[in-house]
């Protein structure tokens, strides 16, 4: 059940006037994630776009304490903060949030995250995925989808499919795994609330699709629309896995039926990074989406949900 807009809290954790780009999908996700977790949160943040939100010099727009660390140590830092809270007996009311980009999760931070998941350290790991190293100038990452041009894959675009991080985390047997998008702030809010309830049950992994107007190549006012198209075309299903059980979230439920999904061309044509895609490339995209949903349907069938 999706929460009503009137029931959402008023208190903001990010003050206006940040250094992030105009129309940033990450900022929208950050705002709602912190609103859900509340003031008693400690953030650890590696080098990413969100670091820009931390501010320069003596001032910051964030109302909660944040620790800025190296790329590869975000999960290790969060584990340390969680261990310190446990030693002080404050782990019940203070939550640790590791807020990393896709570089800090898929590529550089994966060893720390994998280690922390295996040890069962008590924190929430949020991967805000904008599908390339946007902060350093749009370089290819493990999360960049097939065919997307970046500054390091300039002409043909990336020739490989993206990594399936969700499956890697599922293989770790985490208590709570969720996937959400910047176009659904209420979904983000609910999933972070739920992740907080799983306090003391190891790492909780949430992946958010964050749109990037300069990196993806679309006008700033389309930021939310693009993330929504990713959901509506079935490319980015909103789902959660609670104690191993797969649940499709309300906004994505109808896309189990293939005829209800929008054409993926709508999503691809709106962005300049996919401008050069040919018909056979779009076939690869369609097959990727179909295979993804077939797998989901099979699993739901096994669970006896459909």
């Amino acid at each position, binding site marked *: 059940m999706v929460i009503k807009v009137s029931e959402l809290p008023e208190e903001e954790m990010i003050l206006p006037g940040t250094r992030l780009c105009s129309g940033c999908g990450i900022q929208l996700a950050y705002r709602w994630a912190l609103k859900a977790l509340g003031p008693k949160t400690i953030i650890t943040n590696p080098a990413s776009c969100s670091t820009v939100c931390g501010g320069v010099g003596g001032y910051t727009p964030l109302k909660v304490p944040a620790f800025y660390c190296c790329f590869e140590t975000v999960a290790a830092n969060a584990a340390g903060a969680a261990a310190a809270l446990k030693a002080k007996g404050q782990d019940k009311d203070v939550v640790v949030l590791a807020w990393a980009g896709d570089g800090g999760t898929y590529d550089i931070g994966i060893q720390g995250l994998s280690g922390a998941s295996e040890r069962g350290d008590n924190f929430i790991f949020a991967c805000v995925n904008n599908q390339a190293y946007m902060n350093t100038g749009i370089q290819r990452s493990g999360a960049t989808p097939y065919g997307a041009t970046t500054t390091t894959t300039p002409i043909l675009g990336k020739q490989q499919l993206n990594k399936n991080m969700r499956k890697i985390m599922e293989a770790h047997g985490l208590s709570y795994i969720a996937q959400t998008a910047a176009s659904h702030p*209420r979904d983000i809010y609910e999933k972070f609330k739920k992740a907080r309830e799983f306090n003391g049950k190891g790492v909780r992994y949430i992946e958010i699709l964050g749109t990037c107007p300069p990196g993806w190549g679309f006008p700033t006012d389309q930021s939310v629309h693009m993330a929504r198209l990713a959901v509506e075309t079935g490319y980015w299903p909103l789902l959660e896995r609670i104690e191993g059980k797969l649940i499709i979230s309300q906004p994505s439920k109808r896309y189990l039926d293939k005829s209800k999904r929008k054409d993926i061309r709508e999503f691809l044509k709106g962005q300049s990074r996919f401008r050069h895609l040919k018909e056979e490339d779009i076939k690869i995209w369609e097959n990727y989406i179909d295979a993804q949903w077939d797998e989901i349907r099979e699993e739901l069938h096994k669970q006896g949900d459909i």
Partner: protein
Amino acid sequence: MVRTEQDIKLEKKVSQTILASQQTPAVGEAGHTGEWRTKRPILHTEKCLVVKTGKLTCNLCWLYCPENTVSRSIPPKFNYDYCKGCGICATECPAHAIEMISEKEAPSCEGNEGGN
């Protein structure tokens, strides 16, 4: 406890040291980000669903604003000092009550003194 002059001196010194070593939350950390804007959002109150119904039920402009510059009130108000003019509110408004007009035609931004 009544503070003596010495206490106040010490407190000031301590607070200065803390200030130098940690960050304090502040509005407008990057200066007046409203200056980045080329188009500004204008609300047509006669179309706005919140004004029409008199209830805080829609508020999608408040929900989707990344910069947190739209208020949840009747009618919704924009914080033009920090609004970066991305135009998400105008795209997402179900009643098309928000229009993006060129900054040239709009009256100039108040308190336009530049960044920090």
